[in-house]
């Protein structure tokens, strides 16, 4: 008896001892483990200009930095590598003053020359100009070490957004690169808080901090660690096991699956981005062409139920203007009295359908005099389960007012091709995004992007344009006056609400989870200094410089 007991106790205490040692070690973690990209094998690419967007996260917004960062929570541009800007010469010239005392991670000084060079390299290699900056720019020159002058071909004030958020690259390195389009930039030199590639393997890579970062004392953490995760299931498991600290993934029933396992440290924050997910209506369809039908469909949708069943209650029903959350400040003061077709109202839906000449038959199905039935397909990407469920709810809703809607799923490639060619009737999809609602409305109502059915249109899939809106867009592009900008947005909003070119479905949240066991000072609803989601580059810079070891 005694002989067997002693080894047993020794083993147990030995394991306890090991356990304690392990726990102490684990209480501090050197690197912040992050998930942003679904990959199974890393490819070494740190080219922030790469048009394919194939550079590793956070190349543009971590290794490299922009002039200004748009903070989607406050709705403002925050000066970063630039300090200030000024329009002059009737908004044809933009002057920017550039920050002093910033160094590249190889020790060389950063200056306005680098800023001018970044734009000029895009002029030389048009493939790099993914924002079409040279469609409106005429010349970019550094006037001194701390001042850059952007001269425009034509007045185009919204061009500021693209200029401000451009990642700046070092001239002294990139002027020796022969083909910057195909350059993978394996050893990046940047101004950002994390610049040193400590390790790069196909399963894991580590990005060390820039010890000479221009914001003194920042970043607070030593390195970022990026293991590969092919899909959200692996991300969820890694979050639960505590091996992942920060992720931007969609997790179903996050309260039960993730938070309830450790209420103290498992956090998530899905703030509204201000943008909206739409039920796109093909306005070239002979029936959907009628605004009454579009509004009737919208009235018939019980968005509360869509959000609850389709989106796990993570978001809220869409506002009729198509913008919400932090973008609500753009709502026209009279908008709510004018139209309310995003509020569930079966009576109004039926009324509008009757007005349009579609009467309910005995079967419950509506059709018009010539026997045309109200029947549509809603197309969704296969596997996008939240949208598929949302579409199913919409389909149930529409049945109540006599509209038959069939949910059909397609592979992403096939889906996007149908959207772009206008070969659909109804579809759940996203719309243009930006710092103001301007890109949204332009994508919704401008004739500039309009294409006939069968020809690829990269935006304006629903194929709608309005001459009145076109003149407002031109007016908007010429002004830098804030009150005038607001007035134009209000007018655009009124047009949007009147014509319902597409149907806002629900507000779009930004997915993000974090584990505060080893790190603190993540943004949250209580401390909303930026969005927690790493998916809105370069906004993650706010998080990267503020996160701290516990």
């Amino acid at each position, binding site marked *: 008896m005694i002989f067997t007991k002693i080894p047993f106790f020794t083993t147990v205490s030995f394991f306890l001892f090991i356990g304690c040692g392990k726990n102490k070690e684990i209480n501090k973690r050197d690197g912040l483990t992050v998930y942003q990209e679904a990959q199974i094998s890393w490819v070494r690419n740190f080219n922030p200009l790469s048009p394919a967007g194939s550079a590793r996260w956070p190349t543009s917004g971590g290794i490299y930095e922009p002039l200004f960062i748009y903070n989607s929570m406050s709705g403002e541009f925050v000066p970063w590598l630039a300090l200030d800007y000024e329009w002059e010469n009737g908004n044809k010239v933009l002057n920017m003053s550039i920050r002093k005392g910033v160094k590249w991670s190889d020790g060389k000084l950063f200056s306005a020359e680098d800023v001018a060079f970044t734009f000029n390299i895009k002029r030389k290699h048009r493939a790099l100009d*993914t924002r079409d900056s040279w469609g409106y720019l005429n010349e970019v020159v550094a006037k001194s070490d701390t001042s850059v002058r952007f001269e425009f071909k034509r007045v185009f004030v919204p061009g500021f957004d693209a200029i401000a958020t451009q990642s700046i690259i070092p001239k002294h390195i990139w002027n020796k690169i022969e083909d910057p389009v195909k350059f993978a930039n394996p050893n990046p030199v940047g101004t950002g808080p994390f610049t040193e590639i400590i390790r790069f393997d196909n399963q894991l890579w580590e990005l060390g901090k820039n010890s000479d970062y221009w914001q003194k004392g920042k970043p607070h953490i030593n390195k970022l660690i990026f293991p590969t995760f092919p899909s959200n299931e*692996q991300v969820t498991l*890694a979050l639960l096991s505590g091996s992942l600290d920060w992720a931007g993934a969609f997790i179903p029933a996050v309260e039960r699956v993730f938070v309830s396992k450790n209420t103290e440290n498992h956090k998530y924050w899905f703030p509204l981005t201000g943008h909206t997910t739409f039920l796109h209506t093909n306005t070239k369809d002979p029936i959907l062409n009628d605004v009454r039908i579009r509004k009737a469909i919208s009235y018939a949708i019980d968005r509360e139920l869509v959000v609850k069943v389709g989106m796990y209650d993570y978001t809220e029903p869409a506002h009729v203007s198509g913008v919400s959350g932090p973008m609500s400040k753009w709502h026209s003061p009279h908008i709510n009295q004018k139209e309310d077709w995003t509020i569930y109202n079966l009576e109004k839906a039926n009324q509008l359908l009757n007005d349009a000449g579609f009467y309910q038959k005995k079967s419950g199905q509506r059709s018009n005099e010539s026997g045309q039935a109200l029947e549509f397909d809603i197309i969704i990407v296969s596997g996008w389960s939240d949208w598929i469920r949302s579409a199913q709810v919409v389909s149930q809703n529409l049945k109540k007012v006599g509209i038959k809607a069939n949910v059909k799923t397609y592979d*992403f490639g*096939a889906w996007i091709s149908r959207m772009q060619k206008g070969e659909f009737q109804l579809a759940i999809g996203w719309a243009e995004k930006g710092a103001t609602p301007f890109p949204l409305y332009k994508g919704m109502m401008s004739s500039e992007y309009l294409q006939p059915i069968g020809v690829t249109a990269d935006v304006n899939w629903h194929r709608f344009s309005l001459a009145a809106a076109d003149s407002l867009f031109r007016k908007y592009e010429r002004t830098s006056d804030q009150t005038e900008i607001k007035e134009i947005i209000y007018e655009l909003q009124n047009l949007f609400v009147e014509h319902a070119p597409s149907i806002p479905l629900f507000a779009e949240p930004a997915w993000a989870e974090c584990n505060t066991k080893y790190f603190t000072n993540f943004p949250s609803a209580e401390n909303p200094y930026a969005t927690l989601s790493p998916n809105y580059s370069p906004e993650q810079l706010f998080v990267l410089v503020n996160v701290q070891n516990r």
Partner: protein
Amino acid sequence: MAAWAALTLNFFIPRLMPGDPAAIIFARFRGKLKPEAIQALRETFGLTNEPLLGQYWSYLKSMLIGDLGISIAYFPEPVTNIISSALLWTIFLAGVSLIISFSIGTLLGTFIAWNRGGKLDSILPPVLAFIGAFPYFWLAMVALYIFGFELSWFPLGHAYGENVTPGFNISFILSALHHAALPALTMILVSLGGWMLSMRNIMITTLGTDYISFAHAKGLPSLQIMLRYAARNAILPNFTGFGMALGFVLSGALLTEIIFSYPGQGYLLLQAVRAQDFPLMQGLFMTITFAVLAANWLVDIAILIFDPRTRK
């Protein structure tokens, strides 16, 4: 000839898919990219409006000199680099588990056929057939959840641990083996039954033939009859199956790779198809095609060795 036909199909089939790669990459930004960007993207990838036949000729030419082009999804990484990094892991995981599963399955099949009607013969086939009938992803997920997450016996994914450096060192090899264990086990478990059953069935037929009875009558040791007389003949159809499976190893084990975050070819192929990455798809299909052709050739040789009748 087979290779040429395969190369031609590799070229045309992906191009029959709707959509184009630039549009798909643009769409992945979900409205965050300005529409003007798409022209820049098309320019970058060299997507031209050249007639398909012209593209086909330049494709054949570059294939002949072994130039697989530049990937679109992983721009600007050459396709050869991407494939070679995934290839080794796939051969390691899928290849090794196939060989293990084939050897164990065939041996078990031989054994239970020899002792047909015995205890093992009545237990193993139904049990393994039962396991094999489960959907693989379900079985793998349950295994990952129980042995990886709840019990922490095996890592939750990846091909090697965070604190080892890839290279020829003991800790890396041990870590790689530890990481491969669970995915390999699940793959072996589901495929074992098939090998075993087919071997058992053919073996039983063989055991009933006259020459086996003759060998018994001659008084040969039973081990010799079992392995050299019966199994050697019975294994031939299984060998053909093995050859086919060996060729398809290179297409990767998609579900295994996704569930265990394993960096192999299968997931790469999925990515390539999703992004309409023509060069990467062509490269992957080409390696698979050549692997299948090579495996068939090897099996032909193996059968030549095992089966004297084919040697005339």
